[in-house]
């Protein structure tokens, strides 16, 4: 029979005598300070050789993780610590919470812990700013890396920029110093002109197949970083055609490199309703540069100017000080083009909708910035939605991260920050050289499994796999994030989630009405 202890926090307002009917071997009062609580729990748990404990009191969620960690480190089973939080309950409510907790606890099976070695290498797909920064930070933390880059040279889009105004960083210099740090390092492998073909495995042991100029190669690693960058798309639905007088914002750098001279230049932003902050940043940067290089007259047309980022507001003010004129539009401007000039006709709500009619020598149009590599992420079942619980670089799959412009549009400092954050998370995951997880936490009973693969389809974390030998589904314990969705949806009721199994949930309902 299982040996349970009941721990009542002081201040819980529960009388130990009220637990007399329950099967416990020790009842004790504990201080509710988290640190003391953890020590006492471990001490008493070990002394009385307990199989589990019911902790009754005011136990905030934050303390729960600390307690479970302490128990695990002391060799006790954290999943058999049932917390009864009594905040907000009256005497009757307290009594029912405690009864429900005991009902659930009686059905809890002990956990079995497993430890598996991991590949410490991180597989980085994409050698642009975000990918390179991830590699640099991981090397500082001592983990080996592989960088796969589709182009001949590393650097991605950063390598095609002249400057990163308003930042002082010189793009080519930054790439050069990154290369110097990485290329002679024996723990760094760089595959250029290479593309990923397939990704197999789970956290701690992925296998990536890469098409290199010399043929396909495979590499193993414990974590995968997608730094796929972004693609620039011409906004064709606006009806505008690129030409000598109409150019995309991304081409402005090469244009301003020449000694061409345009007397009057317009920037047209926010072609899709929302527009982007990166677009505004590039336009401000371009406008200032044109003012500097050519001394032209510059107009910026937008729906809403986005100045809610660190350099944006100051750049906007600087542009105004230099004589850049800002217009707002609601209806998309009417654009007509002759060989010499581009005419824009629009109404500015802040100018009482008076019709503005201007002729320009050059029209610079904001393009769409789309995440690159969506074919790849879709094929591999990886998603990074704008979900606060995954923000910023985690994905739905454990051990796979997305950094830089492939997860959200961002400028250079954003990409650098992403790389640093991802490296930190990977170090936390793989730094110890092993993963510790609970085996059979969510288990498929192979004799009941009808191999319908519902779990494989619905698992949001890509942890449900196909076991062809057993002809059954298999929940990979290292990748499983314990949501229990498969257990709820399994038509054959073949999946058991130990900590939240049906028996435990039903036992709480058995308390009946009052």
């Amino acid at each position, binding site marked *: 029979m299982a040996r349970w202890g009941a721990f009542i926090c002081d201040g819980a307002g529960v009388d130990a005598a009220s637990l007399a009917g329950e099967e416990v071997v020790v009842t004790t009062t504990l201080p509710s300070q988290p640190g003391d609580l953890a020590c006492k729990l471990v001490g008493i748990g070990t002394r009385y050789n307990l199989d589990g404990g019911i902790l009754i009191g005011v136990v*905030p*969620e934050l303390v729960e993780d600390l307690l479970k960690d302490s128990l695990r480190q002391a060799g006790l089973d954290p999943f058999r610590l049932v917390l009864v*939080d009594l*905040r*907000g*309950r*009256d005497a*009757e*409510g307290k009594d*029912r*919470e405690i009864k*429900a907790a005991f009902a659930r606890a009686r059905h809890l099976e002990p956990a079995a812990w497993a430890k598996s070695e991991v590949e410490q290498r991180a597989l980085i797909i994409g050698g642009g700013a975000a990918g390179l920064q991830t590699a640099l930070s991981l090397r500082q933390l001592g983990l080996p890396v592989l960088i796969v880059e589709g182009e001949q040279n590393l650097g991605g889009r950063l390598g095609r920029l002249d400057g990163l105004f308003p930042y002082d960083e010189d793009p080519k210099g930054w790439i050069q110093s990154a290369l110097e740090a990485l290329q002679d390092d024996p723990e760094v492998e760089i595959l250029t002109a290479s593309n990923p073909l397939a990704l197999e495995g789970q956290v701690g042991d992925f296998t990536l197949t890469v098409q290199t100029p010399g043929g396909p190669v495979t590499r193993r690693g414990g974590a995968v970083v997608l730094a796929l960058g972004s693609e620039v798309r011409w906004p064709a639905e606006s009806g505008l055609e690129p030409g000598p007088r109409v150019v995309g914002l991304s081409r402005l750098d090469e244009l301003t490199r020449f000694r061409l001279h345009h007397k009057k230049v317009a920037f047209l932003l926010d072609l899709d309703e929302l527009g982007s902050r990166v677009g505004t940043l590039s336009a401000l940067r371009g406008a200032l540069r044109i003012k500097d290089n050519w001394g032209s007259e510059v107009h910026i047309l937008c729906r809403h100017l986005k100045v809610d980022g660190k350099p944006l507001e100051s750049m906007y003010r600087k542009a105004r000080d230099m004589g850049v004129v800002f217009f707002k539009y609601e209806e998309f401007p009417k654009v007509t083009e002759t060989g010499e000039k581009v005419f824009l006709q629009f109404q500015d709500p802040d100018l009482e909708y008076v019709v503005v009619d201007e002729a320009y020598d050059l029209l610079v149009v904001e393009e769409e910035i789309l995440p690159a590599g969506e074919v790849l992420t879709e094929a591999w079942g990886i*998603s990074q*939605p*704008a*979900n*606060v*619980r*995954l923000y910023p670089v985690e994905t*739905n799959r454990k051990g796979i991260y997305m950094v830089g412009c492939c997860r959200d549009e961002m400028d250079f400092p954003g990409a650098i920050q992403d790389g640093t954050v991802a490296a930190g998370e990977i170090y936390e995951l793989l730094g110890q050289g092993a993963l510790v997880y609970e085996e059979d936490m969510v288990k498929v009973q192979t004799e009941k499994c009808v191999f319908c693969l519902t779990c494989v389809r*619905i698992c*949001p*974390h890509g942890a449900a796999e196909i076991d062809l030998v057993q002809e059954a589904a298999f929940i990979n314990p290292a990748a499983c*994030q*314990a*949501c*229990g*969705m498969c*257990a*709820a*949806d399994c038509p054959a009721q073949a999946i058991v*989630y130990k*900590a*939240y199994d*049906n028996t435990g*949930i*039903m036992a*709480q*309902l*058995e*308390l*009946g*009405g*009052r």
Partner: protein
Amino acid sequence: MRIVVFCCENSAYQAARQGQLPAEVDLIRLPCGGRVEVLHMLRAFERGADGVLVLTCQEDNCQSLHGSARARHRVEYAKEILQEIGIDPERLQWHPVTSNMGPRFRKIVADMIEGLKLASA
């Protein structure tokens, strides 16, 4: 009266702890809204619940991406069953609640209690 509240531990379970709970409420903690089964909801009614609430995360904030949406779908299905067996489907409700929405949690519970009192009067 008994109201069984299935709570996602990431959101509603924390919201539940931010104020005084009516004595009628029994909380059932789940790791994710996606864990709740139609069977659990029906069993709650079978064991004397007058009302059942399934309270999960906002749909685009679910840690398991679509756990909250699945909970909502299952509640819709269970409501159809309740209708067929002659139990007012309004006795079963799904609502999204985030972890900092203590007042909203209490309002949902209070509204249900009031609705049930009206129904039995």
